């Protein structure tokens, strides 16, 4: 008994020491960022049992298609994905053949994608099919940069997994534009955003102790109120558009997220039950051995 308690005391003391040291640290990294905004109402897909809100994903797709898609590619997504189980336009009637869904066909048909004419070899534009990848707004990176003041609009396919905070970060960036504080020099064609990770020390004329948080971004504020008209009548505020497009991007970043969590619940229940049975077997087999 003495042996065990001494061991625990030492371990606790050591951990306490580490905790004190950890709490005392204030990292002095050059890159800063304002604490991310709270999303009103939160995201429905958060947490171990979270599920995607299909109406929100549909609205988010509309924001993407009408606003984001004019500059940002989404090369990992195909139109058929929109109708697969768990997708924004999933319909049970086409459960086994999502690419046959009229929603996907109609969405794809509205878009022209580049192709090669099989008879002449000429470069042509044809209506997309559900099997096509989302159309990229620019043919190549130099073209994208040339149209955006030298900046490359990043591909949005996995954006919600590629930034700290994910969907919350996307929401904060999209709604977080504010006028730059006096004393901050922002180059023409660039914009101040406190949620963009950056180091503004060199463009700040004030005291070193009051450098504004955040950085500069080449994308201007996009989601003005009413920019996108939602078909379901949801008021099209900046916050609503940002929340919906963040939801859509969370889904595109990991379309199997909900399937993963649902499978996880079943696996957990099974494993806990099975582990319990093994423990009882262990107790029974060892019951006569002093050890």
């Amino acid at each position, binding site marked *: 008994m003495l042996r065990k308690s001494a*061991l625990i005391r030492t371990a606790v003391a050591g951990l306490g020491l*580490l905790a004190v*040291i950890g709490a*005392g640290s204030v990292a002095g990294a050059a890159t800063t960022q304002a604490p991310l905004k709270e999303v009103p109402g939160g995201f429905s897909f958060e947490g171990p049992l979270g599920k995607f809100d299909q109406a929100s994903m549909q609205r988010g797709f509309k924001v993407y298609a009408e606003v984001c898609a004019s500059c940002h590619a989404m090369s990992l997504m195909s139109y058929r994905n929109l109708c697969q189980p768990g997708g924004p336009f999933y319909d049970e009637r086409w459960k086994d053949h999502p690419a046959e869904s009229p929603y996907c066909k109609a969405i794809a048909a509205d878009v022209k994608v580049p192709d090669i004419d099989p008879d002449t070899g000429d470069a042509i534009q044809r209506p997309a099919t559900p099997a096509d990848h989302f159309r990229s707004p620019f043919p190549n990176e130099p073209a994208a940069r040339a149209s955006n003041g030298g900046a490359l609009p990043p591909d949005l396919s996995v954006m919600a997994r*590629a930034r*700290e905070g994910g969907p919350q970060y996307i929401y904060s960036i999209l709604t977080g534009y504010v006028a730059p504080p006096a004393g901050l020099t922002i180059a023409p064609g660039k914009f101040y955003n406190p949620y963009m990770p950056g180091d503004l020390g060199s463009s700040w004329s004030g005291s070193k102790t009051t450098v504004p948080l955040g950085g500069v971004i080449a994308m201007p504020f996009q989601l003005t109120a009413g920019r996108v008209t939602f078909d379901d009548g949801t008021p099209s505020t900046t916050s609503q558009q940002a929340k919906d497009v963040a939801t859509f991007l969370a889904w595109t970043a990991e379309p199997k997220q909900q399937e993963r969590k649902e499978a*996880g619940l079943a696996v957990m229940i099974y494993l806990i039950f099975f582990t319990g049975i093994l423990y009882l077997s262990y107790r029974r*087999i060892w019951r*006569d051995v002093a050890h």
Partner: protein
Amino acid sequence: MSGHSTYEPKTGIERWLDARLPIIRFAKETAIDFPTPKNLNYWYTFGGILAVCLVVQILTGVILAMHYVPNGDMAFNSVEHIMRDVNYGWLIRYMHANGASMFFLAVYIHIARGLYYGSYKAPREVLWILGCIIYLLMMATAFMGYVLPWGQMSFAGAVVITSLFSALDQIIPGLGTAITTWLWGGFAVGGATLNRFFSLHYLLPFMIAGVVGLHIWALHVPGNNNPTGVEPTSKEDMVPFHPYYTVKDGFAISAFFILFAWFVFFAPEALGHVDNQVPANPLVTPAHIVPEWYFLPFYAILRSVPQKLFGVLAMFGSIAMLFALPWLDTSKVRSMRYRPTARIFLILFVLATIGLGWCGGKEPADMVITMGHDANNDPTGFSVVWFSRILAIYYYAYFVLILPLLGLFETPSEVPTTISTPVLPKGGSAIPAGAVAAPEKKG
């Protein structure tokens, strides 16, 4: 290993096979009848857990390799293809990625258990060294596996680790550069590097499996150590491996899988880094390069030395210490259960390693304790790099000073004469009647 066989071939086929390849006899001797000390606690279940981890990694890895494309232009998208279009690809990939972390978690507990109970001491030095070789192979495999998704952190990690060899330029000018060029298959990390890393990442796990075979062989010659560190003296100290330890290990493996499943299904990217979801771009370096959590202590040791060559030597030396451990510990007492002083130093050693891991995840210039600010408003005080220096010195001191000297000067507490002594009431018989006689017939 022989001498405890109760195998009697019953059928003609079994007798025929037994005379030619006694594989059934071997399996029965090593996996069923093998006499095992009856006092092994749950810390001893991690060997079985690790065997399962290796099997999970190889099975999921072979399936991933069917869909993955080791090409600089296609690797990132092929991983996303697995996540999106391959049936249960997301499950297989998350098991593989998190399985690596679980593997290291288990191996660190397994090593710490060996350190505490003195499992590295005679006659188990070869067993211990084989384990160290497995650990080294695991590190190489994990590093190359982390490069394969070809994200930003994959690329940065490949650059940082392969460039370590360029420190050899400080011994023979040109040698380090030649080695890194050879490793890269070019003059920079690129598609050729990715392709060879994939080849080696597929090869090394089978080498691990081979060394695991030797590790288990080397275990079965002297038999298990146990929490008392006292060698078994009689049959009463032992139980057959099956069913006693198959059920105990089985329970522990299943419990471990609950943790594993939690990460796979509910936090699959908690142990990763968001920068690795950005495709590799040689022109953009991530702001803050960090390795996976299981390499952080060694990364901290590397960065704690201002001179590159000595930093690299300090890092590799910290693992080399493990190989020399059986001859550094001078104590005649095996288990730290009976070495109260050594126990405190070992706990501090574990805390120092965890502390080094914490340092490895921070920037060297970050402050542990901030005392003020300089003219540029950068904090001043006790920095991470100094904290990691102190911890690294303790790490080394544990091996080269504390263990060699402690064995000569400490006073161990009383060591029991047999395994059974500590658990029995005074004057009790070694084992209750009938305990091991026929366990499978009970219940």
